[in-house]
């Protein structure tokens, strides 16, 4: 449908603008994204959504991830784009795994705490150990407030 394509285009433009605005904030942490990197991240957002069978309305989660993770001591300029892309994909994957029982903010907070804490910047540890456990417990009624204490 034409209108669907138009809507996606509009969403992409909005996402690009959001990330451009993020640069102003993340500069003080020594992190910036080039136009090409922003474009790639936005494209990956739609791929990640599609791969995880999800649909997004309005603002995406990229901006929230950038704001949450830019202060991490384990995030460097040289792998900034790759890490944000991986975090984005991890985020959508675990939204599904938690049966949507975790809000965006709860999941991002947990991811950030674990990434900076136990995982010490390891995306593998974050995804394969802590988030798996969190989602398993969430499905059985666990409250995510425990954060890094898992």
């Amino acid at each position, binding site marked *: *449908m*034409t*209108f*669907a394509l138009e*809507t996606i285009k509009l969403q992409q433009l909005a996402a690009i603008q959001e990330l451009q605005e993020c640069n102003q904030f993340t500069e003080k942490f020594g992190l910036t994204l080039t136009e090409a990197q922003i474009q790639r991240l936005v494209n990956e957002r739609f791929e990640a*959504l599609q791969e995880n*069978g*999800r*649909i*997004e*309305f*309005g*603002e*995406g*989660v990229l901006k929230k991830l950038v704001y949450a993770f830019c202060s991490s001591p384990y995030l460097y300029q040289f792998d900034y784009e790759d890490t944000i892309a991986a975090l984005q994909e991890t985020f*959508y994957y675990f*939204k*599904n795994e938690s049966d*949507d029982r975790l*809000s*965006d*903010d709860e999941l991002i907070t947990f991811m950030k705490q674990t990434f900076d804490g136990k995982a010490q910047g390891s995306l593998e540890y974050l995804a394969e150990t802590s988030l798996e456990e969190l989602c398993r417990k969430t499905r059985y009624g666990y409250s995510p407030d425990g954060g890094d204490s898992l």
Partner: protein
Amino acid sequence: MNTSALFPFTDPSANDLSLQDTEQLQIKLWQLVSYQSKRYTMGDSSSLRIETAEELFTSICFLLQLYQIETHIPWQKLLDSNFKELLKESRSLVKARIAQAKSLYARTQQSLPKIKNDFLEDTLTNIGIFFQKYDIYFFAHQIPCIIDYPLACPVPETLYGIEYILQYLQQLLIENHFLQCFPSMDLNCLLSVYIPDYESSLINLYEPVAINAWGHQLLVQTNNTLNISHQEKVLLQQRFQHLSSPELHVIAAASAKKLASELSLSTPIETDYLQHTIDSLIPRLKVALNAQNLNGIFMSW
């Protein structure tokens, strides 16, 4: 659940909508899905599973279509309306239908036949659960309960949500009312012959009773029993074996009407239902007549 029947208005050719109108409609629907998804997640999540978004979309389509059918306003005119307002008004229509369904449900429970069937009981219990679980805000097209008990005339699969339940209850009430016309002893005998463990079998109770009652009407018998003896089957065989299917349909319609009148089934809808049930028997009856064996049609004991 095949919900394609809920989207005829997204097809421009079906409603004389221009391509431009259809695009405008689709944009409005998209905005409404976005609005509903925000309400559904209560702002906690920017994304949804595609299946959930599809269900939200289907619910919107169900509600808008209900409104359009009820008001008869053409889609071209509705396009200029505020869709959020339309959704609100559609929900009011659904609420009225829920009240109507609850009243029917109470009447159906009071009119249960004096014979037992586990599936009928379970289905009625489940319809009670439907009223607790039915979500008119997000999933108005869904039927959140299990309906096992089969009716003699199945409810069309093009009905969804409360529309389906209303129709189901109306038909069940007709069937119950009919079954109440006969002594429970007779019903028990007939159904025991039809299927020995009828109490725990997934069968419709109305149809075999209606067929035997109709057989009696054809024999011009006025006694209230449902039994059709083997001699009576021979009589029926002789009377109908040379008739064509169209002739049988004509006789079936007339005699079903007479039967409804004899049983004091007062409403036309009850007569129509009986006629339709008998009419759908004709192909089977024709085969049985050709085989000179009416044992599978009329029950004897």
